[in-house]
């Protein structure tokens, strides 16, 4: 995963480009796919029981996220499809930026699941190099903000 700051800045850029009224929904969509899979990071602090974390990684699949967002959107007293669109706009930016990452072996994002289980990645950046993505996106965001004023 690129760090959540990068995901959120990409989300902020999209809120400007699409003139989103409720930015927090897009930003939430930009980090939600990582919340469940990253529970495993707790093992840095405490030993976790032996379990297969694939069950958590399902939240990181665009199709499954889309279905989940359709359920989550019913919690909002707002225009339903707006919420679904904003959540998925953020999530799509998340999945596409994750698809830039380098991996050993068979890493990547299952962009076309359930049509295929193929994982897609451009193998460009290691996770610790995402500042190379963050800096230009942040500059572009600030430029658009300035232009809009």
């Amino acid at each position, binding site marked *: 995963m690129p760090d*959540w700051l990068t995901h*959120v800045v990409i989300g902020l850029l999209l809120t400007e480009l699409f003139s989103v009224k409720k930015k*927090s929904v897009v930003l939430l969509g930009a980090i939600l796919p990582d919340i469940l899979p990253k529970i495993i990071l707790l*093992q840095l602090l405490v030993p976790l029981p032996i379990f297969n974390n*694939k069950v958590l990684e399902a939240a990181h699949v665009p199709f499954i996220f889309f*279905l989940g967002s359709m359920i989550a959107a019913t*919690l909002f*007293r707002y225009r339903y499809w707006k919420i679904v669109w904003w959540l998925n706009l953020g999530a799509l930016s998340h999945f596409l930026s994750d698809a830039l990452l380098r*991996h050993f072996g068979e890493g990547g994002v299952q962009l076309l699941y359930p049509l295929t289980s193929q994982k897609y990645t451009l193998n460009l950046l290691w996770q610790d190099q995402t500042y190379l993505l963050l800096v230009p996106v942040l500059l572009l965001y600030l430029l658009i903000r300035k232009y809009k004023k």
Partner: protein
Amino acid sequence: MNLKLLRRISYILIILLLMFSWGHYYITMAEPVLPTSGFIENPQLYDGLTRTVLGIYAGPSPEGFVLQYNQRLIPVQYHGKVIPPRYGQILIYGTFHQEGYIEAQQVHNYNYNYLIYFISFLTFLFVLALFASEWKITKRGIESA
């Protein structure tokens, strides 16, 4: 059929589809169903398996280095040069052996990964704060603030 009933049926169908997809994903993707943290207890089950493991560099060993994963130590055989990661973790791609060690083919240091986790946590708090400023939770659901 009235609109309310149609909405309820659609909602139930989406929940069912989500449950089915989640289950399908787990069954088809969890191959082999062997979490890395179980390797220490039953290394013979993992013999020949090649996968990526992200853990903590716990120190050098005569054959390579020791990896800390889920608070347990796994010996790693690696013949290349390894520099301990700075405030971060080490990613290895290697083959598991029934003798209880991993034979690493490639390694990569995630330097400053702990800083990335910390920044990510702060970012999460920022998103929550922004969400709280734009929405309010009521008995009827989440409403615009």
